[in-house]
């Protein structure tokens, strides 16, 4: 009762700007679709189990002659067959989505570098040597961007919920995350892993530019 009453209240405090369910790019859209399908599937299975439970209580009585056949249906068919089928389908689909999220080489891919530290994010741009931004990652809208993520101290997690999934920033190692924004705008990002007392202020903004503004940024004409 308490959970049922308070959950909608707490969810009302969620913001679109940090919601993975309001995708603003292809990678986040794939992840959001997977989430919705899993939610719908889990809800349908829960309803099925509750209906079967209710039927079992209504039926009552002790064991009957048909119980060995029922065991085959309920335990082998629904308990094992149904469960394994659902898990296999979700695994296959998850692997397929995972493949589509990988940073494959291709035309028009932009590379940027992100370095996390306690408690800030520093961004550099191979296409504009010497250009450094703190707390704001600039990218072109409509183009795939490979973020080369590392850390200067402890392990952090780079996450822009509306653009892609999260990926760890590990000292001495570079992980590459493919992000893309459909349209110009600002998208909230954050360190998604607890990393000390300054964790709550460990966030940043992704600024997606149109083509002209991106060229201006690379040329150093905008801050």
């Amino acid at each position, binding site marked *: 009762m308490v959970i049922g009453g308070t959950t909608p209240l707490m969810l009302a405090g969620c913001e679109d700007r940090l919601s993975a369910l309001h995708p603003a790019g292809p990678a986040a859209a794939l992840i959001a679709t997977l989430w919705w399908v899993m939610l719908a599937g889990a809800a349908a299975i829960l309803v099925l189990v509750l209906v079967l439970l209710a039927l079992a209580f209504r039926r009552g009585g002790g064991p009957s002659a048909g119980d060995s056949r029922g065991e085959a249906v309920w335990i082998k068919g629904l308990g094992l067959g149904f469960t394994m089928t659902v898990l296999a389908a979700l*695994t296959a689909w998850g*692997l397929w989505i*995972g493949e589509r999220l*990988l*940073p494959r080489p291709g035309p028009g891919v932009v590379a940027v570098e992100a370095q996390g530290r306690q408690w800030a994010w520093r961004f550099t741009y191979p296409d504009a040597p010497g250009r450094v931004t703190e707390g704001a990652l600039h990218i072109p809208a409509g183009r795939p961007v490979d973020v080369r993520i590392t850390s200067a101290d402890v392990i952090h997690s780079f996450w822009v919920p509306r653009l892609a999934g999260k990926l760890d920033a590990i000292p001495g190692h570079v992980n590459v995350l493919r992000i893309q924004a459909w349209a110009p705008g600002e998208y909230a990002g954050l360190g998604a892993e607890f990393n000390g007392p300054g964790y709550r202020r460990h966030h940043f903004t992704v600024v997606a530019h149109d083509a002209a503004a991106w060229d201006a940024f690379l040329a150093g004409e905008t801050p």
Partner: protein
Amino acid sequence: MSDILRLSLPLTVWIAAFSAVYGLEGVVCSDRWTGAGLTLGQGRAALVAAGALAIALQLALLAGLRLPRFASALPWVQRTAAILAGVALVATVWSLVPVVATSLCL
């Protein structure tokens, strides 16, 4: 062979094989693999071979536990060991599928 071993060996082998194959993937994707003059294609072949070995090991356990020489005197142990060996075989195939089916080192 003790009954404890009959019951625990297949899933223990699965855990060990899982760790070994994904550990090998880490080695293949490290700089040291290419630094040793090996290619990613060879890395994939090594992973597939390791996965096939793990599956072969599970099949051997499944078949071996049915032999009179290794069978338990207790019927319930024999039945449970056979079920657990089957589960370990399925788990091995299931958890090693990504090694073959997905991209390597991206």
